């Protein structure tokens, strides 16, 4: 079979210096190129009807043949918030009117973040069948996973609205989480709207986490269990059912200041804080936003490099 001489040259080694000749012949960029990586993202965005539908499907699937269906998401969140909020406010001796909203919002956003991390590691493994049998951009599955979490989150948001309605009077005036020498929080105001850009930032981070962890976990199958045990650890270390207000005033070198220092090293703390503080009317430091911004840039850079280099390999690994 005759093959054009031009095609032979450079086609042997796609990453070699003859790459240009091979590409020129077939007018196709190397599998490891930025144009293919961004092409994947663009095509997935164009096919938003597909992942939008698949994400909904996932939720409907979970509650198939159940009478109230996805309403169970909201109910289970409400039960968790009521039980933990009630219990811990008594244990820590904190007023329930401010502690309950605090725990509810913390849980809501923690569920979203940890689901992005945990289900992110499974995103390509779970879609193995589709990846091996249908040509589609990889980002479809990333968007599907994150979109599903956004929908779960929207269901949980109902619980916040209910809690807010109940405890509105306590939340809208200045309050302290810890008496007598805790931080005085200003109470709920229009700055609650800051939660919207905060959530968008968290979603953007959920995307790179899903993409990057998804690629790594597809290649190294030990990653999902490792990640899930770390997430357990992070849950306890992150102020969700406890508050950093408890740590104020610890002497240097004391346990209190050590825990506070650890909390600040914990990336999840900053993401939870930018979303929770505005919604429960607490004082917020701009350093949280700065830390989240840096993580976003670094994370997306790593994820894009992974997408560029390993996009075409995922079909081989699943």
């Amino acid at each position, binding site marked *: 079979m005759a093959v054009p001489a031009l095609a032979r040259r450079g086609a042997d080694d796609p990453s070699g210096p003859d790459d240009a000749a*091979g590409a020129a012949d077939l007018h196709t960029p190397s599998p490891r190129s930025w144009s293919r990586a961004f092409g994947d993202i663009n095509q997935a965005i164009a096919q938003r009807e597909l992942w939008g*539908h698949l994400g909904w499907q996932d939720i409907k699937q979970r509650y198939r043949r159940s009478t109230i269906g996805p309403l169970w998401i909201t109910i289970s969140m409400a039960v968790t918030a009521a039980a933990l909020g009630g219990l811990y406010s008594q244990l820590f001796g904190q007023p329930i009117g401010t502690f309950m909203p605090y725990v509810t919002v913390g849980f809501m956003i923690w569920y979203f973040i940890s689901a992005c991390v945990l289900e992110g590691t499974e995103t390509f493994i779970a879609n193995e069948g589709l990846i091996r049998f249908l040509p589609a951009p990889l980002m479809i599955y990333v968007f599907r996973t994150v979109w599903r979490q956004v929908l779960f989150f929207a269901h949980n948001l109902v619980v916040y609205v209910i809690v807010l309605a109940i405890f509105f009077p306590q939340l809208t005036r200045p309050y302290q989480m810890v008496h007598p020498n805790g931080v005085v929080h200003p109470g709920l105001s229009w700055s609650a709207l800051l939660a919207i850009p905060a959530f968008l930032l968290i979603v953007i981070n959920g995307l790179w986490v899903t993409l990057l962890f998804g690629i790594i976990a597809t290649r190294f199958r030990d990653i999902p269990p490792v990640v899930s045990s770390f997430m357990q650890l992070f849950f306890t270390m992150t102020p969700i059912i406890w508050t950093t207000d408890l740590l104020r005033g610890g002497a240097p070198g004391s346990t209190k200041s050590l825990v506070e220092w650890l909390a600040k090293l914990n990336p999840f703390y900053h993401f939870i804080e930018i979303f929770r503080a505005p919604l429960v009317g607490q004082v917020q430091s701009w350093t949280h936003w700065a830390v989240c911004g840096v993580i976003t840039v670094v994370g997306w850079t790593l994820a894009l490099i992974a997408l560029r280099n390993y996009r075409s390999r995922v079909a081989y690994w699943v």
Partner: protein
Amino acid sequence: MVSIDVRNASVDFPIFDAKNRSLKKSVLGRAGGHITDAKVPVVEALRDVNLSLRQGDRIGLVGHNGAGKSTLLRLLAGIYEPTRGRAKIEGRVAPVFDLAVGMDPEISGLENILIRGLFLGMTRKQMESRVDEIAEFTELGDYLTMPLRTYSTGMRVRLALGVVTSIDPEILILDEGIGAVDAAFLEKARDRLRDLVSRSGMLVFASHSDEFLVELCDTAIWMDTGEIREQGSLREVVSHYKGRDLFESLSPETIRRLDLRTDTAADAPPPGGPADETVGSP
């Protein structure tokens, strides 16, 4: 312009879970001095494949189990990008592989039609306007509202073929599974597939069945241990592969039904002639 060009393409699968890398074996191996490479074992599923397919081609893929037919189909569908070499695919690809995959058994046939269509690049609106046509073609009727798990294999094939043929794909890639449909439906599907190919595209079809190959293809590729062994007219290649004339095994009524095609096939060069008539030489 619909085309597929493959140059020196190889597909190597890394096998990460092969057991030959256990600590025990590597220790023993060191003692014996036999195992030298420390890499992940690799299965070479395709080696140095060169192929040029153009609009209107109807190619049958033959070969033993494990010869690389399905891998080649996935390479042509753009699912696997070659580990070495190049593959350039121009045109909208619609593959039908394992019929259970990409179909959710718990949701209705209608919703599966929608999802499949969205995967193949259609919009929701476009698919909704095609549903009636698909329902008519597949003859599934009210069954389309039932969950897919209630379908027989043949009904799933009908559904899959109904979707891919309704969306005007340019490159249609079919794996062996479609053999599950009955003769009457196959005839209907064949007319539609031929019509599709003559209108806009190309068809690549892997099969072990002489009858299906004759019905759908006019040229063939013989895959052997991951390489293209022979490429040429259907009758020639399949006859070489099977070691007997392709048309011998066909029932008289099939030949009667396809009489037009049998005549043209008889005009093809006799076995032993130039085998690469469809290969894109410069």
